[in-house]
């Protein structure tokens, strides 16, 4: 497997940037921003919670693009791109769910509740886990890629559901994303501003992390396929 040096350098740079951004993001969330009025320190997890959700949203959205592009071009690289995005998206969604549960324990006094928001994110996670199941169940590579592309597109319905459900069920106990309700009791502009800045910083950080992870996953997949091809070549030479 050979890649151009400039791309490899770019990836390396992005990787380092992602790590640095993540550390800074954590510092901002844990130390720089003041405690929130109602939720106290528990609210600090919210930055990672929302950041990872954005990450999964980006990744699953990219999987739709990959699916459409694959069906149009039949270029297996789009399939690799789709697979990488779904796997990274699953990881991000898992972080969303786990941080959500960790937050819910002190705030709602329970790890899990069948709130529409939680339920819909869990469904989304299951849909993309099913994507991986489907892939593993289809032997013919061409068909696997084709079905994965189709399912990657359909599964996005579950992502839309996580967003639409809030409008249908405004009575969810899940807090509304960033808003004046979370501002400091004193109404001090500075604290509200810090919450906002920390949030945006973390959203950006997670977007970068997602891109970097997907990129690495694509390279890993290329390597796996390269090794498999070599293995077959060697075997057929024997």
């Amino acid at each position: 497997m050979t890649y151009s040096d400039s791309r490899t350098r770019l990836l390396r740079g992005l990787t380092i940037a992602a790590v640095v951004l993540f550390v800074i993001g954590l510092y901002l969330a844990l130390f720089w921003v003041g405690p929130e009025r109602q939720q106290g320190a528990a609210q600090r997890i919210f930055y990672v919670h929302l950041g990872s959700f954005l990450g999964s949203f980006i990744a699953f959205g990219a999987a739709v693009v990959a699916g459409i592009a694959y069906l149009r071009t039949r270029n297996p690289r789009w399939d690799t791109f789709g697979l990488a995005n779904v796997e990274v998206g699953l990881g991000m969604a898992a972080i969303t769910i786990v941080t959500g549960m960790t937050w819910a324990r002190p705030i709602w006094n329970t790890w899990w509740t069948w709130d529409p928001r939680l339920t819909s994110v869990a469904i989304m996670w299951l849909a993309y886990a099913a994507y991986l199941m489907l892939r593993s169940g289809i032997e013919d590579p061409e068909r696997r890629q084709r079905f994965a592309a189709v399912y990657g597109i359909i599964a996005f319905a579950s992502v839309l559901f996580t967003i639409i459900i809030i409008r249908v069920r405004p009575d969810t106990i899940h807090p509304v994303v960033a808003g004046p309700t979370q501002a400091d009791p004193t109404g001090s502009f500075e604290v509200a501003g810090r919450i906002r800045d920390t949030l945006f910083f973390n959203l950006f950080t997670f977007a970068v992390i997602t891109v970097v992870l997907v990129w690495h996953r694509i390279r890993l997949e290329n390597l796996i396929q390269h090794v498999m091809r070599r293995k077959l070549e060697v075997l057929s030479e024997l």
Partner: protein
Amino acid sequence: MSANPEPTTHAVSAAEGAIARPARRAGRRHRPLTPFWRAVGAVAWKDLRAEMRSRELINSMVLFTFMTVMVFSLALELDKEARQTTVAGVLWVTIVFAGLIGLGRSLAAEKDRGSLDALLLTPIDRSALFFGKMIGNLLFVLVIALVLLALLTVLFNVTLLKPLLIVVMVLGTVGFTTAGTLLSSMSVHARAREAMLPIILMPVVLPVLISAVRASVAILEGLPRDDWFPWIQLLVVADAIFLAAGYGLFDYVVEE
């Protein structure tokens, strides 16, 4: 029908050599030769006809429905209040699992006998095949749903025959069978396909299922419009998404 429908417009470009690709001419849409709805009707009619003769699917689905309802009513010994709130859940869970039986078999049978190839060899739009199969499946599931309505009305002593509930029922089953028909055309190619269908179908239709249950509960409890109408809107949106997905994607699933 002539023995050799002469493609007059193409005889010329065919002579130009192998590089000329007449099909890529700008703006050309490929019409299937059999009208869309005629093909849809033929496929749905064929499935119903075959089913009326063998009653293979309907029998197993109805029997399954009876058993499931029995299990539910035994397992949940409920008072009147509780039944009112549970019945919608029982209704939809049973529809989904009975429906899974029908969906799983409908395309598997076509594939195993090779008749799917025969269908794909006909000059029809592939999405017409999709809608034909979908309508067949939908009718089977609707029959089950009606049986269930009657059964639950008797066993749970809750009046289910409300017009609004029927609307929810139709919207819910349309979404379920549309997604189900599309995904079962993929799962028939998988290893362990009986297990694969529920795995890939459930997460996709759970939003439909949740909306249908919530709407049904709200309607049965006689809650105001604001409590069930958003769910019906959501059902309509989900149906539209799945219908569009089936129309656009089935082609890619069945080709090789």
